[in-house]
């Protein structure tokens, strides 16, 4: 969340406490620039800019329904560009690294190409899975006031924009990961009308569970490979 977001001077809107799950709307939602008409490139760039710099304003204006196609396309384009460039940079660095002469470069190239071809499908599927997980936790908290599509739209715009930060070398991936969490929380508060605490739980709980499972799998894989459990002393 940037200062620009805080400083965005919008018309003052009253937000009375919603009664019985009804969220009061002061103005109709017109949707992000991506859902407007005009050339694709500028619409995409403007949406990314708004998600990264003023997420509150963007999600406050995002339509809760209106089809999966637009947000899915945005999410897949953004995350594919981010992941592909990030992966190619890592690959280039790995191939340029001294001492990696034994690597079979053509085989790696073929694998990378195949992975890049499947990447949009994998990323589209991952958007659906993340949205389903967030929505499940929201429902468990009794906070899912709008259908699954609303959660999916938040996830698609959030991930499609923050994934692009991976194009920055060194720590772009980490910053993008953290920003995707923050932007998703903001998106859920502004679309489902839930408290920040519930939105934070909905985003962090699935992420923590999946991360712990991934760490367990990784530790098991390393222990299978080395024959011993990895330990902190080895890590240092």
């Amino acid at each position, binding site marked *: 969340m940037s200062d620009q977001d805080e400083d965005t001077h919008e018309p003052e809107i009253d937000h009375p406490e919603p009664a019985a799950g009804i969220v009061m709307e002061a103005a109709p939602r017109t949707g992000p620039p991506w859902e407007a008409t005009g050339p694709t490139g500028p619409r995409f760039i403007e949406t990314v800019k708004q998600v990264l710099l003023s997420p509150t304003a963007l999600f406050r204006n995002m339509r809760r329904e209106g089809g999966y196609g637009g947000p899915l396309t945005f999410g897949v384009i953004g995350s594919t560009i981010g992941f592909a460039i990030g992966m190619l940079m890592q690959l280039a*660095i790995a191939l340029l690294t001294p001492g990696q002469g034994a690597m079979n470069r053509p085989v790696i190239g073929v694998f990378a190409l195949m992975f890049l071809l499947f990447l949009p499908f994998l990323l589209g599927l991952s958007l659906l899975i993340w949205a389903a997980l967030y929505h499940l936790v929201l429902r468990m908290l009794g906070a899912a006031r709008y259908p699954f599509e609303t959660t999916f739209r938040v996830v698609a715009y959030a991930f499609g924009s923050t994934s692009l930060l991976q194009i920055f070398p060194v720590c772009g991936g980490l910053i993008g990961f*953290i920003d995707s969490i923050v932007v998703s929380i*903001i998106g859920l*508060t502004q679309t489902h009308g839930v408290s*920040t605490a519930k939105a934070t739980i909905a985003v962090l709980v699935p992420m923590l569970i999946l991360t712990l499972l991934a760490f367990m799998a990784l530790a098991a894989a390393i222990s299978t490979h080395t024959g011993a459990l990895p330990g902190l002393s080895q890590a240092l």
Partner: protein
Amino acid sequence: MTTQWRRPEPGRPDRETIGAWVTLAWVAFAAAWLHWFGLPPIACPFHAATGLPCPTCGVTRAFAALLQGRLGASLWLNPAVPVAAAVALLYVPYALVTSLLGLPRLRIALTARDRLALRWSAGFATAALWTFLIVVGR
């Protein structure tokens, strides 16, 4: 630069709630990676390719040293980690208390000149950190 304490606007995301819990989650991720599962530090591709450290080289080891209470070692491995930890130690309790108790929040309004100074300071600090890491041969 001016500071003021004010309550969050209704209907707006609560920055302190997000900041506190995302910071704590990040620390939990890092602690789980290093301490509980004992996974190895992530290799830096920039260092592997050029032989030079990047500004974030040593962060994982510095964090691990900090978890073991070895502050000196942490400072030596990457000074940004203990500094960030000190900021987090101040920020997280403040954010948790204000958000859980619904207290007014600290808001800092920066002028254009302040923002420029902040950007230059951040750039200088990064350059100084990177120089340090290169000089000590991280």
